[in-house]
């Protein structure tokens, strides 16, 4: 028997994991379409230069190669947002507001196994805070529909950290950025005498935190966060203002969010406003979006195979009865599989229940069938009687 060795870049999905991805897609369709979003299929290849301009440092983790025909550097998809804008600009589908959702793989050398799955939404052409609230609410709805519990939704504004970084000595900027990302109080207390900035990573809570933000000159940020809070509360989304939340993707321009759940150290979803990203393609329209990291959820929620109805084991001489009955049951709307392998009845039954069939049907020449509900529990009846009783699935 040959053995398969996994390479460091491979991400193999088992049948259960694959079915989790399928279910996530079906639920994404259900939830995002209920918010009026259209599905957008996005390319897997993009110009490396555009990727670099949109996601900055993170493009170093992309898989890039030189096209032997044009000599151009091409990257595999690392982020969906830029591609969504590019696609809509090039197909001239820009009647605003434009609501799209996507689903697919991204490739990053920074991930364990280079491929991972994401779904997400983009709301373009909307500048107001209701748009941000819509994106966050839809993502929260989606996570809850998938069955993710104990969501911690943190909202913040990139304006806060950008201003703090802009006002510091250029030589200290990188160290300060790192300290903000690590919520390093020791470093910040050393740098700032004002307690608000020194303890910025710990500034979190409800409305009261916005007053402190205003006191320190962040009027626009406080106003937008306050308005967002009103929308989210009305929608029943439980959230926390977390001024220590730092998003290091360069394209964000306003409100940002991150969603965590117990048991996972990485966020399960995140996103924010990107009002200047369209300028990459010579346009000028605002936008906001959010992505959900399906692979991370898979490790939390697991996956299961699609439930199936009947597994038909044909013991008749000619072996045509099973074929005919299977087709008939499919016409009735059942999920039906056939046992096309010669083996003992006992092995066929074990296979059937292990593979997700809820019943196994043994067909015989004498027009009698045996219906198994477990490998050991069964009842016998005539084929005619059986077909009468199961006509309506």
């Amino acid at each position: 028997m040959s053995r398969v060795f996994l390479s460091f870049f491979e991400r193999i999905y088992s049948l259960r994991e694959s079915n989790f991805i399928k279910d996530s897609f079906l639920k994404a369709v259900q939830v995002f379409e209920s918010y009026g979003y259209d599905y957008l299929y996005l390319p897997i290849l993009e110009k490396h230069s555009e990727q670099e301009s949109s996601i900055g440092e993170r493009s170093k983790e992309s898989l890039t190669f030189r096209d032997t025909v044009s000599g151009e550097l091409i990257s595999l998809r690392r982020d969906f947002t830029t591609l969504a804008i590019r696609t809509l600009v090039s197909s001239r589908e820009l009647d605003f507001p434009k609501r799209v959702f996507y689903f697919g793989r991204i490739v990053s050398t920074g991930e364990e196994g280079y491929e991972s799955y994401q779904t997400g939404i983009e709301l373009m052409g909307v500048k107001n805070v209701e748009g941000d609230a819509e994106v966050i609410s839809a993502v929260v709805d989606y996570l809850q529909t998938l069955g993710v519990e104990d969501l911690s939704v943190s909202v913040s504004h990139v304006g806060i950290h950008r201003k703090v970084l802009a006002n510091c000595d250029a030589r200290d900027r990188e160290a300060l950025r790192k300290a903000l990302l690590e919520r390093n109080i020791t470093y910040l207390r050393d740098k700032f005498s004002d307690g608000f900035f020194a303890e910025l990573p710990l500034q979190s809570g409800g409305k009261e935190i916005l007053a402190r933000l205003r006191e320190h000159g962040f009027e626009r940020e406080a106003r937008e966060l306050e308005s967002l809070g009103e929308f989210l509360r009305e929608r029943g989304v439980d959230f926390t203002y977390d001024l220590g939340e730092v998003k290091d993707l360069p394209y964000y321009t306003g409100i940002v969010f991150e969603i965590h759940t117990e048991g996972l150290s990485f966020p399960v979803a995140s996103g924010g406003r990107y009002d200047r990203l369209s300028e990459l393609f010579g346009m000028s329209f605002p936008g906001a979006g959010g992505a959900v990291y399906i692979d991370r959820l898979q490790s939390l929620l697991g996956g299961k195979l699609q439930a199936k109805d009947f597994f038909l084991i044909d013991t008749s001489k000619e072996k045509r009865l099973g074929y005919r009955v299977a087709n008939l049951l499919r016409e009735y709307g059942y999920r039906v599989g056939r046992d096309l392998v010669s083996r003992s009845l006992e092995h066929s039954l074990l296979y059937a229940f292990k593979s997700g069939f809820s019943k196994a049907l043994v067909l015989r020449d004498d027009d009698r069938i045996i219906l198994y509900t477990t490998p050991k529990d069964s009842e016998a009846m005539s084929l005619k009687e059986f077909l009468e009783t199961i006509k309506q699935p």
Partner: protein
Amino acid sequence: MRIALPKGRLFKESVELFLKRGILEEPIEEGRKLVIKVGELEVMLVKPFDVPVYVENGAADLGVCGYDVLLERPSEVYRHVDLGIGECRVCVAGKPEGRLIYEESPCLRVATKYRFITDSFFKAKGKRVRILHLNGSVELAPLIGLSDLIVDLVQTGRTLKENGLVVIEEITRSSAWLISNKASFRSKRAEILPFIDKLVKAL
């Protein structure tokens, strides 16, 4: 709330600090028990190098971890507060004649348990090294000719001195930090923030 504390010297120093800051009311001893319940706090005793693994993966909400460990094992955790305990240095050391080898040799053999720190340090210097990964008694390596140099933690310098070794260059200073799991920081904010507050206010 669960906190992972490193076994050994840092455990004792952490407990003393927590007692001083009013986080613990009674002293706890390092024994055979790996999980000790103190009121609402569950203390887990783990190997120093494993603290970030427990915290990163959510088995512990908080941890006390040496900066040397965080450098060696980069982890997706928050690094909140320098606790000012477990102070030491990560150094390049060797026999006194090792200084010349350090300056002139085109390729150095370095014994260490800090593979990542050693690799990054010498790469930044543009020096080629062959790293010999050892799990303990690193000081022995240059004495018996297994390596030219070592990279190791130096606290008082006594062990080096007793083995006729000297510090050749300091790579970084290290002390213990309070770290937290990124999800716990959000979901257990109400417990974690006062914990940090008690430590920060007193420092």
